[in-house]
């Protein structure tokens, strides 16, 4: 098992964002689905310790998440945020930065290829990329760290139909080509059906269903 969450709760001010969430996340591809405001993105952020829960426990590979050094964990469990946010400079400088943090040798052409970008993008200034290209560059940057788990927060929400289909195809290829687990947040159950084989369905911060896709999205 990849992640095991037990009675995880988190409040922001007066609002209970997550309320006694218990779920198991296995390797492969898992979708976290639910309506807007149901706590999906917050749950994702807990998995690489961008935030910690107020109560409950999360285990990663059978070990409590609190026992992992946060920086090392984030290099192994990499999160691609909903909106692209690259550092100033070129695509390659972003990839090199991520690879350096993870202590990996950078193969920019390979990372770009996995993210559906041709090697010519390496020298491009990030300020001159379209949103879809930036999202792919974010994906390539995460892959430069050779993570074991990729957390994707609404990876296609800022994109039009064609760009969405292209990213989905890219993610499908990633699963086939790399030994990498995907956990993606999506408000669209159809996207979950296209990309994942298991799902956690949240409603108002609580788990409404968890398990194989057919059961969780029934």
């Amino acid at each position, binding site marked *: 098992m990849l992640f095991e969450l037990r009675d995880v709760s988190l409040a922001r001010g007066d609002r209970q964002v997550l309320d006694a969430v218990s779920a198991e996340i296995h390797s492969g591809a898992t979708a976290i689905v639910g309506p807007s405001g149901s706590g999906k993105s917050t749950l994702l952020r807990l998995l690489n310790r961008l935030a910690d829960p107020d109560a409950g426990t999360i285990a990663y590979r059978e070990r409590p998440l609190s026992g992992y050094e946060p*920086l*090392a964990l984030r290099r192994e469990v*990499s999160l691609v945020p909903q909106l692209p946010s690259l*550092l100033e400079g070129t695509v390659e400088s972003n990839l090199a930065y991520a690879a350096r*943090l993870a202590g990996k040798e950078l193969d920019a052409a390979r990372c770009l290829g996995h993210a559906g970008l041709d090697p010519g993008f390496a020298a491009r200034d990030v300020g001159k990329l379209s949103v879809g290209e930036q999202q792919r560059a974010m994906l390539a940057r995460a892959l430069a760290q050779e993570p074991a788990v990729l957390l994707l927060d609404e990876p296609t929400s800022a994109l039009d139909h064609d760009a969405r289909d292209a990213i989905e195809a890219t993610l499908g290829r990633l699963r086939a080509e790399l030994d990498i687990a995907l956990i993606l947040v999506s408000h669209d159950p159809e996207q979950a059906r296209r990309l994942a084989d298991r799902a956690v369905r949240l409603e108002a911060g609580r788990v409404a269903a968890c398990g194989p896709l057919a059961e969780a999205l029934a």
Partner: protein
Amino acid sequence: MSPSISVSLGQVAAALALVALAVGISFWRRTDLERDIVVATVRSFVQLTAIGYAIKLIFEADTIWLVVALLSVMVLFGALTARSRAKKVPGAFWPLLIGLAIAAASTLGLVVALGIFEATPRYLVPVGGMMIGNAMTASAVALNRLGDEVSESRAAIEATLALGATAREAALPFVRRAMRSGTIALVDSTKTTGLIFFPGTMVGMLLAGAEPTDAVRLQLILLYLLLGSTAIAALVATGLAYRHFFTPAQQLRELG
């Protein structure tokens, strides 16, 4: 260094004519600043008169400990004032206090060690006050900018943290911009000094009858000291304050 001149209260009172003019202009153009101008005028009179007598006492006592006490009070009030302008920075007081204290101690220590000024109240009090005042403005501007930058760039900072970068690495671009905005005003005014405006010390010395070359040299020393003290204060304050935005687990804090 210069012959002393005396200024009567009557002369100060006569200068109030210009304040009346400012109030009149504000009233005429409806800038709604009349009250603020009056408050500023009264406060400046009371505060400067009080500090004038305090400095007189310190000069007469001629002991270094009173100087240290006065400068410490200035650092404390400087940090409190700057904190009120850096509302978006959690726990801004200590970084400001430490920044101002280090800026004042290092610049004054240096001028005494290099033999530029004697370690007597006559030099240390006015020079120290000037350093602390400018360092306060620079560090307040820097932290104000830091607060704005971090609250506007939360997504970018978290995206960098998500790669396994440390809080320091994730905050670095914003700390740099904050430091720059704290020190750029003095750097720019130093570039144009003598061309567009005459700095206060030089004007004061010329009015007091000093030789222009003496006035210029003293002003240059003070300008260079100010560049040093503002840079040190902005560096220390931003370098300590950015940490308050993060938890020990390198997470960006949720701020109300």
